[in-house]
């Protein structure tokens, strides 16, 4: 079985998408290998699109931007549609994560991916919408299925089973296992630390131009 793992985060390192894809890979038997792709810019080479034909599954991971797909990734999806993919047996799976607590807020981005599959003629497999994405890169060492990653572990095991079986299933929406009020507090503390590190004051967070 050949699986492409496509990271749609624009960040070179420490992205939530990177953490999520790393965790997902632990749900597969050891003999399964993956080919990794990074789509960080708004264009991709036709050679890469051509390579996609060899896979049984394309697994995308990306951050939620303004309720949808980041524009650079959307642009790549358009290029794939224009170029075309001949292998219509490919299943597409997607993991969207958002900084908001509720995984359900990723629903429109996953529906956009689903609509893209329809246009390109690929098979929509399943989407996972992860809430609390702002905490993920700092939870890199927490094993999947434990503590704040308990719900994630359950969802990823189901996703991996569907990828291996080449089956489709309903999207799953989840939040990290961490209280919302604490996540909100920690997030806001993070903004205060960042703005101070930039030699600005906390009140500048609300600066009006």
């Amino acid at each position, binding site marked *: 079985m050949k699986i492409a793992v496509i990271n749609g985060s624009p960040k070179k390192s420490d992205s939530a998408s990177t953490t999520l894809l790393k965790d997902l890979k632990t749900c597969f038997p050891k003999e399964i290998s993956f080919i990794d792709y990074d789509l960080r810019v708004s264009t991709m080479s036709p050679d890469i699109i051509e390579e996609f034909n060899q896979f049984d599954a394309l697994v995308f991971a990306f951050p939620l931007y303004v309720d*949808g797909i*980041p524009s650079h990734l*959307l*642009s790549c999806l358009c290029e794939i549609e224009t170029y075309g993919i001949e292998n219509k047996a490919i299943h597409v799976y997607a993991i969207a994560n958002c900084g908001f607590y509720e995984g359900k807020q990723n629903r429109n981005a996953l529906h956009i991916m689903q*609509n893209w599959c329809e246009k390109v003629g690929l098979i929509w497999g399943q989407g996972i919408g992860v809430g609390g994405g702002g905490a993920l890169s700092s939870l890199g060492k927490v094993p999947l299925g434990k503590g704040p990653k308990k719900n994630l572990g359950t969802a990823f095991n189901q996703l991996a089973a569907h990828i291996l079986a080449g089956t489709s299933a309903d999207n799953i929406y989840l939040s990290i296992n961490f209280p919302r009020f604490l996540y909100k507090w920690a997030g806001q503390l993070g903004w205060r630390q960042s703005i101070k590190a*930039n030699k*600005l004051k906390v009140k500048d*967070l609300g*600066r*009006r131009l």
Partner: protein
Amino acid sequence: MALIISDVESKLLNLKDEDIIIENNGHIHPCIGCFGCWVKTPGRCIIKDDYSDTGEKLGKCNELIIVSKCTYGSYSPFVKNVLDRAISYIHPDFVIRKGEMHHKRRYDNSIIMKVYFYGEAISEQEKETARNLAKANAVNYDGLVQKVVFLKSRDELRGMSL
């Protein structure tokens, strides 16, 4: 004042003198997810191109008119790029709105959204996604969607009162 974000030539649009239009000059950079617009240059995107002040422009408008090709139920890559680069319109802190986590307001203005999607073969599923996307944007802006219109071609925009 209306702010118009459009991926069609402005000559097709029925604009008022006071309207501000953001269109594609072919040199827009994508958002890199750095949050510099919240913690380095609050209110303004740190990427230096013609689109770094869109958040500020959103803060001064009362109508946001979006004209875009419907792309899988999303805005087109250009229109989405402008919106991705404009999150400085909102404040990084969180509020709970309608039971969900969203961002606080930075500005006091209230945005009314009108969205015009065009495309030859927009499916019912894409229309539903597009309506929900506009609605979700409005919740995040703490504004309202006045209308979402689907057109078969961009030519239908000619002379139309937006």
